[in-house]
């Protein structure tokens, strides 16, 4: 699967939030741990709903968690 044009700061945010585990984030967002792994590796772009749920876990706005990669084609 090619890299997603949508990047994220999930890994950093997890560590900033008391070194939250992937499993804890997955449970909080209602997804599998494998999906968190795919998101952090940049292999999967979440739906808008999941992006909001993930942002809410960290108390951030969506654009503070996700960003468009500069090297991605428009």
């Amino acid at each position, binding site marked *: *699967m090619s890299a997603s044009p949508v990047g994220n700061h999930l890994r950093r945010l997890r560590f900033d939030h008391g070194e939250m585990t992937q499993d804890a984030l*997955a*449970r909080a967002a*209602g*997804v*599998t*741990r*494998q*999906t968190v792994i*795919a998101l952090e*590796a940049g*292999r*999967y772009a*979440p*739906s808008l*709903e*999941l992006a909001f749920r993930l942002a809410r876990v960290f108390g951030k706005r969506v654009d503070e968690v996700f960003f468009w990669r500069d090297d991605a084609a428009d």
Partner: protein
Amino acid sequence: MRILVVILLSAACGVLLAGPWIDWPFPPGQIGLVLMLAAALALRRYWARRAARRGDEPGEPEREVWHGLASTSLIGAQIATALYLAGPGLALHSTQAHALGATAWTLIAGAVASWFILHRREVPRDERDLAIAARAHRLSGHVLATLVVALALLLGFTPPARLQPMSHVFLAHLLLMGLVLASLAHHALQLWGYRDDAGGREDAG
């Protein structure tokens, strides 16, 4: 590669359970059921060990697909072999048909029981799993359509003299085999999707 190995190994078990080459001490269906339960227990231990050591074990939805692939392959091969050995004149109330039915249904019970062994009551399926399943569903739909067209052509162009010996039970099972093959393709394509999603690493699963 791993997907193919699981399909072939499970199919080989199905063929051996249906064939007359081994004189099983118990009914073949029961042997298959015990085999499925033992495989599920071993797999659960293996995945638990991987989770503890490497943290790259498959998630709940992917586990279900692996289980579906192995079960479908085993049961499909058992039915196909029994059908081949019985021949096109397979009668509904015959020893062969009864043996086929008893073995197949016992194996289906084994598939259900082994699913409960592997099931972990976690997040059932999230949007990524649904996306992978949807892609596989679309492609396996094409596989099913191709098989139905192939079967229709076969039935349409086979000389009547060769069609007449085919019993309705045999033809019904041929249709079922089409569904089994499409289901097998569905499971394999889903696992291919998971493998692709994991960066194409060979040990996905």
